[in-house]
């Protein structure tokens, strides 16, 4: 409608923050699924979950699969009394569910996912001038980063938090009785909380690294350097100085695992809990400082 002065009438209704940032977070969480490559990547990241589902089925006799020796070993009871598999292959132990998210093989998949989604999230928008599209729509830089982080966390969390939970649900329904549910429900809740917290911290660092980078490729390189380079330096230092706890101080992935194990009360060796928190905290503070500088409107849009 046009007013007597020929201008459109201005009918402004305030829009709550949640309705503004949620579309961005949702888009960030789902955009991987809009391309074949993205679907393939996500499928790849589900490999640890699928492998553990197969193990679960073997343990509970749903599948008769693999050599007899292995099958017998996985199905041996009770697990803890030698003869059976280690706790990380035993569905009655919480480490079975934690392992798919925090053990070394999972690192490859989490790194892939975070590099392709989280680390590119802001840098890509900056490189294409898309920041202006959001910032003129009432989303402040802080809200924008928060939405990007939330989207990335939802996506990565689907692998590191939801997949272990689904695996646990499958185990409960495959188990011969409800003792698994009764014995692990409390611990599982804490474990899932720990995984969610650690995932949130990891994606926050990734998102902030992205916020400080100029290009999407630069962000991927920076993020990979932090994750892989940190791990390599940690291994070197631990070997040279013969202090294995140094891994918790220097390698972000090790720190991620140590924090999860600590909160969930899972056993761990050669780990420094303080070191792990310091490592993640320092990375978070450093990346936040860098991103804050680079995401000031005047700098980001200059």
């Amino acid at each position, binding site marked *: *409608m*046009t*007013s007597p*002065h*020929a*201008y*459109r009438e*201005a009918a*402004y*209704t*305030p*829009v*709550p923050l949640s*309705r*503004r940032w949620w*579309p*961005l977070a949702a*888009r960030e969480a789902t*955009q991987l699924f*809009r*391309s074949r490559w993205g679907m393939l990547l996500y499928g790849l990241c589900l490999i640890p979950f699928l492998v553990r589902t197969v193990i679960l089925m073997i343990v509970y006799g749903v599948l008769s699969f693999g050599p007899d020796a292995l099958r017998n070993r996985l199905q041996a009871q009770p697990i803890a009394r030698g003869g059976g598999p280690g706790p990380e292959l035993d569905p009655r132990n919480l480490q079975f569910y934690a392992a798919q998210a925090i053990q070394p093989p999972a690192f490859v998949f989490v790194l892939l996912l975070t590099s392709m989604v989280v680390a590119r999230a802001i840098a890509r928008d900056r*490189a*294409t*001038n*898309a920041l*202006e*599209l*959001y*910032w*003129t*729509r*009432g*989303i402040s830089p802080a809200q924008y980063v928060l939405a990007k982080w939330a989207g990335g966390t939802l996506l990565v969390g689907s692998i590191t938090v939801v997949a272990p939970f689904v695996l646990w649900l499958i185990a409960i329904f495959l188990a011969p009785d409800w003792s698994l549910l009764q014995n692990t429900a409390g611990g599982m809740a804490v474990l899932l909380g720990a995984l969610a917290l650690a995932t949130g911290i990891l994606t926050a660092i990734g998102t902030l690294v992205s916020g400080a980078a100029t290009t999407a490729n630069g962000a991927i390189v920076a993020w990979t350097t932090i994750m892989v380079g940190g791990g390599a330096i940690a291994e070197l230092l631990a070997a040279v100085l013969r202090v294995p706890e140094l891994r918790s101080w220097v390698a972000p992935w090790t720190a991620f695992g140590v924090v999860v194990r600590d909160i969930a009360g899972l056993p761990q060796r050669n780990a420094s809990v303080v070191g792990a928190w310091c490592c993640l905290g320092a990375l978070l503070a450093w990346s936040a400082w860098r991103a804050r500088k680079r995401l000031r*409107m*005047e700098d980001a*849009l*200059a």
Partner: protein
Amino acid sequence: MNAHSAMVSATALRFERVTKWYGSIVALLDVSFEVGCEVVGLVGKNGVGKSTLMKLAAGLLQPSQGTVHVGPHPAGTAAARADLGFCPDVERLYEQLSGVAFVAWMLRYHGFSRRDARARAAATLEQLGLGEHMNRSIREYSKGMRQRVRLAQALAHEPRFVLLDEPMTGLDPVARAELSQTIRSLPAQGVGVLVSSHVLHELEAVVDRVVLVHQGRLLAQGRVGELRAQLPSQPHRLRIVGPRLRELAAVLVAWPQVAQVRVHDDSLEVSVVGESGFYEALTRLGAAWDGGVHEVVPLDDDLASLFGYLVG
């Protein structure tokens, strides 16, 4: 200021004595102008402060001094943003999305529900001539179609003003003409437009007024013809086509208003200082001239010449 102009002023996009520093660099110095329900061209070379003015209006930057208002609202407030559509010079859109999905997604930031946003996006794209293609993914779009999608995302929430930053960049002549027509039609729909470009001939066909910025200062503002008329000391250049050009040149060079005549193979280029009586005399001469004067074309009544004269 009378009551009407005061009311119009209160509803316009207003820059009042705006100064902007980036550190020790002055990007804009004491710039004041208004955009009403019209198309205003923001003209200047690259790096003179055009984009800074756009970003100030969009609330992306804050002025170091002065104020920017979108209607009654200070720029950058939620109410001002709701009244404003911004079409930035974005290199790439979300390539996997369809045009309608992208515009609908942008609308959701204005609080529209999924369904309303989709319907509104479809209607806007339809209006901009992209109805047939709106469900195709953006990666399949031509540059002209992408520019329409950008414009659609700026217009779909029905703002009172749109800011178009270099909207013609990279478009072919047909797409440029179509986009010009679309921009020209916006004031009739109640939308004021501030459009920036450093390609002056593109702007000229679109704008009602121009605001010329140079080295962060407001050089001039107004209609191109009016601004040109305010430069009497600058000779007007005309091209005259007709028979017996050398004889015609000899006649013209004797006139007091004619500063210079250049003879080309097929035309004369005449520089006229002070136009008083020149065109009347030329009309009489043309009527009396054996074979007549075929063509009189002003060579510097365009925006580019005006800008050249002002900037030097």
